[in-house]
């Protein structure tokens, strides 16, 4: 909405500039036989058209957006752990507030792990992480029907690289659209 308003004002300003400059440039050219077109340039219809569009409220389709786009943030885990840290609990409490406003949306809680360890144990660990996230949200009153869990283990990593900063980013409970 702000962007359309801004564009309209830029367009209007540009029009005034053109009209103003044209007037003062043409006045001294007395030899020019071409009749000056005096039809007034009316900027109004353009502005009206844009106004009507700008006034219509655009409905936001939250269900088609990534949960992170409207404030539901992922949480992170310590190495080999699936218990929630205080920080993770605070993040989930904020997420629960937003989820309550969107009771019609289902979320998939994906458990992810860093690359260390075996494929199968990491899939099981990822599921434990997803369950920890789901159970905490349910304890805050989010209906379990709104939350589905799955685990990708060490697949679908968020950060590549074999170092602690990449590993820390990959040990997470991630919220996704179903």
């Amino acid at each position, binding site marked *: 909405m702000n962007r359309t308003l801004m564009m309209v004002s830029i367009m209007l300003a540009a029009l005034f500039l053109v009209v103003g400059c044209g007037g003062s440039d043409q006045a001294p050219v007395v030899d020019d036989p071409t009749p000056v077109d005096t039809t007034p340039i009316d900027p109004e219809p353009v502005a009206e058209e844009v106004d009507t569009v700008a006034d219509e409220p655009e409905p936001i389709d939250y269900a088609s957006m990534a949960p992170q786009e409207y404030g539901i943030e992922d949480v992170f885990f310590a190495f080999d752990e699936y218990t929630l840290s205080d920080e993770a609990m605070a993040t989930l409490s904020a997420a629960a507030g937003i989820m309550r406003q969107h009771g019609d949306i289902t979320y998939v809680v994906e458990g992810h792990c860093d690359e*260390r*360890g*075996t*494929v*199968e*144990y990491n*899939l*099981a*660990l990822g*599921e*434990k992480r997803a*369950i920890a996230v789901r159970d905490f949200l349910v304890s805050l009153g989010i209906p379990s029907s709104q939350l589905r*869990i*799955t*685990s*990708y283990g060490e*697949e*679908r*990593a968020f950060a*590549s690289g074999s170092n602690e900063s990449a590993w820390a980013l990959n040990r997470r409970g991630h919220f996704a659209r179903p």
Partner: protein
Amino acid sequence: MSRIVWKLLFLCLTLFAVNALAGDPEISIGTSRVAFDRIDMLVQPLDVVSGGTEAQEAAWLIESVIRVDLDYSGFFRALSAEDISDTTRIQYAIEGLLEGRLAGTGVTPQERAPLLTLKLVAYPGRQLLLSKRYRPTWDRLRATAHHFVNELHLFLNNEPGISLTQVVFARGDGERRDIYCLDYDGENLLRLTANRTFNLFPSWSPDKDDVAFMSYREGQQGIYMLHTRTGKVGLVNETVGSNLAPAWHPGGEELLVSLSKVGQHEIYRLKLDGTVIRRLTVSPAIEISPSWSPTGRDVVFTSDRTGTPQLYIMDADGSGRRRLSFEGRYNDAADWSPNGEQIIYACRENNITQIVLIEARGENRRFLTDSSWRNCEDPSWAPDGRHIVFASDRTGVFKLYVMDVRDGTSRQLTFGDESDKTPDWSP
């Protein structure tokens, strides 16, 4: 999809055809099991009777495949005549004759097929031990050479070798992972799934007709079965929650799977239609990675009931649980050796995962890899009980490697930039 089906059909039919075309072996000496290790085997160049350049190239290919198979087996050492200074040391030799039968237009591939005779002879005296006649089509030369080497193993060792085996595995690029199959020497790579999602843990049925695997193809984890003759995929189990790596019972009638439908991972025995035969574990801990003993009497699996993942063995009904691994804080992915005496698994220590061999009764634990391998995971035994295949990221990306556990020699099996994991060596 249909191309994959045809390729699979071709794979199976030609294996069958090579068998059917093999002539009666002329065996002049009946020897049962011979005790030996690394027997010198002189491999003579094949005599090319006719067929021109194409036949000569075919002869070279067959000879080279036989040489690789012999060296790979660990039982033989392939030698050339120029390698041998003392001819009295020669025990066995392989000799061959290739008759190319190239003809003009209108000739069927079968009619064009070369006639190939491969022989095993014993020195001194070039005594004929084994003679095999083949009529392979020109694109089946590799399989024919593998077949002859397998006959050689059956004759000299009374057991099949591994030259006709394959490896299935999961290859991925981060956004998807597909099941692939290749020959044990790295040739004939074939993709078996193409569903744009994650497919993992392929497992051969004992008769090699099916590959069970885990897939997210319906959006959540499920256990699926791929029929190798038709390429058809069927659902085995897709209960709520996790459905992890399937492991075949040696009888081929049931699977071991870890499911989390009760809220945590427990090990179940399933019929091939997904019906639960028995739940084997009851514990709030993670219980995963089951593998049958070759007799089907025992199951080795992973449990983190002590706080860290450790290996345990239990009876097939879930009773008699006893701990197998006491060293290392992280042990998983066990595979029982074909003779039942050894177990290989992955052990993580100091952030690095290595392959470990231990006797099934818990003694003589030893590392098969060291830190020069970086991480090694998902070990699987070859049917000869001598070779294993596993995934290692020693080049920066996980690729498959084969190791001879007796002498520690190894070879890289897969190449390329994509990550290869969870291999399973065929029967």
